[in-house]
């Protein structure tokens, strides 16, 4: 059994027992606090600085040429723990020259922000670097339907991000130059 050691406490002095000097000290502390700088932000006007790698609302981004990057591989839909993502895959119609090799693109892409838990798995899993959790964090609506971000909304939120690969451009380049037959 654990042994309990009773520690001898220093007896309180008379002034301590009246409690009044302690109250005075407390009053001094609170009073000095009144003149310190305020720590709160005036939210809608002042917004906090969003740190890099912040996980805000998931969005779809376009490449610098304005083409949609998502190829509806549905990996994000698969990995999404709360099943917030719903994709209807579709194909890119033949004859679109700037997306000739992509073939596949989402017909509809929905993220239910009532389900989303901002885990960022979708961003991590995306092989095309098309989905990003960016710095937008405020999402509101009057109905459940409004809280489902559709493809249009997702692209509007996402905007354009720099692309390190230009995968499909590379492909097009390869096709144009070609190898010796």
């Amino acid at each position: 059994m654990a042994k309990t050691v009773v520690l001898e406490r220093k007896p309180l002095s008379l002034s301590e027992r009246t409690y009044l000097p302690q109250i005075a000290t407390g009053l001094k502390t609170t009073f000095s606090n009144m003149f310190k700088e305020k720590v709160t932000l005036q939210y809608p006007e002042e917004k906090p600085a969003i740190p890099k790698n912040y996980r805000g609302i998931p969005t779809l981004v376009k490449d610098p040429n304005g083409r949609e990057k998502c190829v509806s591989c549905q990996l994000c839909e698969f990995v999404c723990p709360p099943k917030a993502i719903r994709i209807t895959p579709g194909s890119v119609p033949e004859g679109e020259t700037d997306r000739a090799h992509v073939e596949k693109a989402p017909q509809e892409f929905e993220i239910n922000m009532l389900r989303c838990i901002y885990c960022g798995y979708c961003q991590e899993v995306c092989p095309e670097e098309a989905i990003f959790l960016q710095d937008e964090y405020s999402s509101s609506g009057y109905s459940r339907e409004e809280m489902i971000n559709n493809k249009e909304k997702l692209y509007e939120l996402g905007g354009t991000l720099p692309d390190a690969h230009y995968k499909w451009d590379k492909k097009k380049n390869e096709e144009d130059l070609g190898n010796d037959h």
Partner: protein
Amino acid sequence: MFDPDFIFMIGLKVFFAFLMIGAVMTMAGYSVLAERKVSAWMQGRVGPNRTVLPLVGYIPFFGRFLKGLGIFQPLADGLKFLFKEEIIPGHVNKFYYNLAPIVALVPALTTMTVLPFGEFFNSDGESVPLMLANLEVGILFILAVSSLGVYGIVLAGWSSNSKYPFLGGIRSSAQMISYELAMGLSLLPIFLWVSQPGSGLLGLSLVDIVQSQSNSAWLFLVQPLSALIFLIALFAETNRLPFDMPESETDLVGGFHTEYGGFKFGIFFVAEYAHIVVGSAIFTLIFLGGWHFLPWIADPWPANWIGTIIGIAWFLAKTLFLIFFFIWIRWTLPRFRYDQVMNLGWTKLLPLALLNLLFYVLLVTWLDQSSL
């Protein structure tokens, strides 16, 4: 019977009464704002700073300043209480449930009838106190009426037919009774002191108490222990932290007014702050020299209407500081436990007040004997 002068007198009194109510209610309302602002500042926050009247906000600098100060917040709060749905829960005793807020507010407003807040010099150069009713036993009237306020709380707690309000009501009645004793006992030495033979002053008259401090020591310097006991008891009587047993949000949800909402809750709220305003004024009058300038220093202002206004302002400044002190204490100290409250009241303050009384009885007796 229908003497025009008499009717004019009554009309004037009614007019003054409304003026007074308006002043006290406004002060109560702004005390709420002060509470929110001061607590915010002490906690590194900004406090209410969004409410603004139309157009006022567009005044350059000044409008923004007022808005930032939250000066219109009490207006918004009051309107909110007014326009909220009046809900009467099904399980309450409806008559007493509706009566309780009235019973709580009325004593708070009644006490102010005997509060002097300045002096006026008539054509003969005599000092006439400014008050609604110059009662010669004003302090007794205040003690008697303000203790009625507990009935509002007890009624609210009982008629709500619910656990938390009931506990809140019980606690508050026990607490108020306990501290009233110490409060009354702490004032007795003051009466003795003020009504010393030959001064011609009445110890029970608030005006005379104030006049006794004119050009001499303030009573809290003469009787610091009485002042301390009275102040502590005042905190307890106004249900302010560290003695807010009836409400104690942490253990009783909302205390006696848990079942109240809308305007009825608003009345409780205002009554609480009216109590603070009146309490602060009383403390100022008894211990801080009322409208007089500083201890041992004669009023530097002339004995005419300018002096009257400066005197009133000076009195208000002291009162406002005390209100600030109330708020300051609230955001500094934690709440006592219920048993600690009882312990402090009965085993510490009451004996101390008795000893204090005994000491001053002997002192005053000795002084009287020696001066004869």
